């Protein structure tokens, strides 16, 4: 089992849900999150601060604001992992910084609360 965590743009949420449902992956959890990436970082300031430049040091820390994003969490059997990744990348890839990140983590086990089923049987079959 794999846990796939994807941080994507808010306005891609609907398209992503539809595309995942069409690919046979209906279940997901979504959260409103705030985040920042390396995109908006001024590396000149970072470098300047590293060299001990006073003016650069004073600008540190008030850097890029946290940007609202949507975070999807999906738990899928190993063989569905690639499908999910393909769908997520296809729908969300606009080629611009800020499109998001996808992380794949191992997941030990899963249980369906209603029946007590565990492992792959607890995951939704479309």
């Amino acid at each position, binding site marked *: 089992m*794999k846990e796939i965590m*994807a*941080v*994507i743009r808010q306005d891609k949420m609907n398209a992503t849900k539809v595309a995942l449902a069409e690919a046979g992956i209906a279940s997901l959890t979504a*959260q409103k*999150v*705030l*985040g*920042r*990436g*390396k995109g*908006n*970082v001024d590396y000149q300031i*970072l470098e300047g*601060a590293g060299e001990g430049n006073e003016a650069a040091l004073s600008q*540190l*820390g*008030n*850097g*890029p604001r*946290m940007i609202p*994003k949507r*975070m999807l969490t999906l738990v899928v059997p190993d063989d569905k992992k690639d499908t999910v*990744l393909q769908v*997520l*990348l296809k729908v*969300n*890839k*606009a*080629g*611009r*910084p*800020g*499109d*998001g*990140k*996808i*992380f*794949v*983590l*191992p997941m030990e086990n899963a249980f369906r609360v209603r029946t007590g089923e565990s492992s792959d049987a607890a995951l939704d079959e479309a």
Partner: protein
Amino acid sequence: MIMVRAVIRPEKVAPVLAALMDAGFPAVTKVDVYGRGKQRGIRIGDVHYDEIPKELLMVVVKEPDKQFVVDTIMTAAKTGEKGAFGDGKIFLSRVEEAYTVSSGVKEL
């Protein structure tokens, strides 16, 4: 790669984010969460609170950087010199793959 998840005090978010930025780890995701710890929440007078507001920060870093990032968060999130109950927890988990959506490239 390692995902560092830190549950910290809401008032410590700004210092931690600044510290991470200065340390060269700008990429962070933040979620509002509510939780209790092993003190079973907090009791003020007759009222028992066990859903205490916290912030969850998530940072994914390369294996060699993990201790540095943990130390950075720990130092910035501590209350006073010694720390106090409720300062939070830091969890590490393994990340097998990471993709940048804009390029589709499989790397951090």
